């Protein structure tokens, strides 16, 4: 079975965000980009699935030349092939998902893994959208997965517990931390990944349905008061919470 993994290339979570000159996106100067943390779980699950059921793992990323770094990381972990869907324009999630769906279709991948969200725009919707455009089933925020033939039993994280979902292939699974422990790339894997040719094609273009008008920094919260340095400050703290903040 052909298995696809879609990955994004995002600013490191330790990055301080500066607003760019366009006032609509971040200033990429001095920003370190990494493989989206949740996508590591997606790659690991794809590799585990391949080891169990056989097949081939293809990594797809839509974006600029630099996305190849994240594709190579997936190849170093053990993915078979990489595809860069070249695109430098502004895309909303719908347009992105349509382009991914086209590529997944042309690859004939019946099982697709993605991170549950990219830590840049935090949308958490690309998996579900792409599944809809493909007519695939989809389980999001998955922390436990069993595939038996065509059948899928997936546990997804919800408020106060987990839902056990029954569905079937073809499907997209979006992966949450806890699903697995992503492997480290071996030196051999890293060397092999360097030699692999990443296929490049232009991403298909679709109309955006939404646009960012403006990006702002959140209103700075002003530092409050340090009301003491031991338990003698506790009665005052409780009074403030009750009478000033009115939160208890």
């Amino acid at each position: 079975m052909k298995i696809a993994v879609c990955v994004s290339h995002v600013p490191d979570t330790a990055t301080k965000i500066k607003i760019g000159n366009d006032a609509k996106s971040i200033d990429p100067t001095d920003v370190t980009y990494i493989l989206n943390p949740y996508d590591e779980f997606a790659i690991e699950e794809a590799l585990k699935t391949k080891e169990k059921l056989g097949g081939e793992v293809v990594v797809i990323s839509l974006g600029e030349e630099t996305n190849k770094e994240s594709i190579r990381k997936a190849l170093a972990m053990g993915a078979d092939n990489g595809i860069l869907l070249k695109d430098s324009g502004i895309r909303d999630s719908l347009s992105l998902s349509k382009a991914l769906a086209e590529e997944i279709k042309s690859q004939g991948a019946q099982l697709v893994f993605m991170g549950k969200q990219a830590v840049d725009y935090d949308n958490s919707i690309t998996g579900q959208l792409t599944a809809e455009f493909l007519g695939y089933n989809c389980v999001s925020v998955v922390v436990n997965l069993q595939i038996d033939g065509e059948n899928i039993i997936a546990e997804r994280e919800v408020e106060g517990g987990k839902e056990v979902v029954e569905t079937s292939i073809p499907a997209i699974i979006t992966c949450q931390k806890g699903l697995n422990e992503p492997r480290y790339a071996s030196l051999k894997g890293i060397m092999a990944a360097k030699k692999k040719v990443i296929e490049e094609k232009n991403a298909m273009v679709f109309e955006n349905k939404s646009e960012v008008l403006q990006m702002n920094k959140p209103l700075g919260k002003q530092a409050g008061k340090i009301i003491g340095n031991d338990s003698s400050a506790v009665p005052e703290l409780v009074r403030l919470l009750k009478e000033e903040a009115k939160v208890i």
Partner: protein
Amino acid sequence: MPNKILVVLEQRDNNIKKISNEVSKAGFELSQKINCEVEAVIIGGEINDLSKIGNFGIGKVTHLKNIELTKYSSSAYTKSIVEIINEINANIILVGNTSLGKDLAPRIAARLDAGIAVDVIKIETSENNIVATRPVYAGKALIDVKINSEKKVFTLRPNVFNPGESIENNAEIIVKEISSPDLSSKVIEVKKSEGKLDVAEASIIVSGGRGMKEPANFKLVEELAEVLNAAVGASRAVVDAGWRPHSEQVGQTGKTVSPNLYIALGISGAIQHLAGMRSSKCIVAINKDEDAPIFQIADYGIAGDIFEVVPALIAELKK
């Protein structure tokens, strides 16, 4: 086509969730601003006190009924809600940004080929446009989003839109049976964590970090949480160390939360943690290191020893 708002309500174990009151009120207020109709839809078996959603400005609610749909089914919920949207000609769809809403809303958007903005914290109108504000980069920045398609889908962050005082008003209920739901994806079981509140839903969160020194000391965090009827949260450091489950992690690779009160115990305030909780309405930090970044966003701080201060706080609250 005139505007019409549809609010998607959510039930769990047949009870309407609190987020549904918030989304209803937000929908009602938006309908007043843009001068249009608003109604609601809910899927489930028997639902308790459904007409009370009228207390939050909803005049009419369609109950899509099937006992098999008490639990979530992405396939069946998507199909039925899209049908009702088309039937009543709604073009503005409001959903709670919950586990269910986050899963369902994009599917609806895809079927309608509608633009979608998720995790919205503010909705404003200007010259016939709806502008939604939402956090990105886990709250390190905010974006204003405009949807250009005629149909628009928004998910609203829990605990942000104030449902206000409820007013006595019963909504009209229209029951429609769903005869043969599409169950190609369905929840067959819900595994509940033992009676614990979830950080994503709690109005008070007590979180612990490295400063707790060892896993056993989280008993103190749990005790304080119990006194306040709060959820227990954790920093990434202690989750990565295996002290606490990932479901409790607050921050950029955990959950982004906005409770009324966030109490940080022994958390220094790494940028990725601050990003996940900075929108809390009131932040209390207790930490030995008075230079810890957490104090820069805390409303109230005690720069002292957790193991001395927290037991005193528990005792004071129990008084």
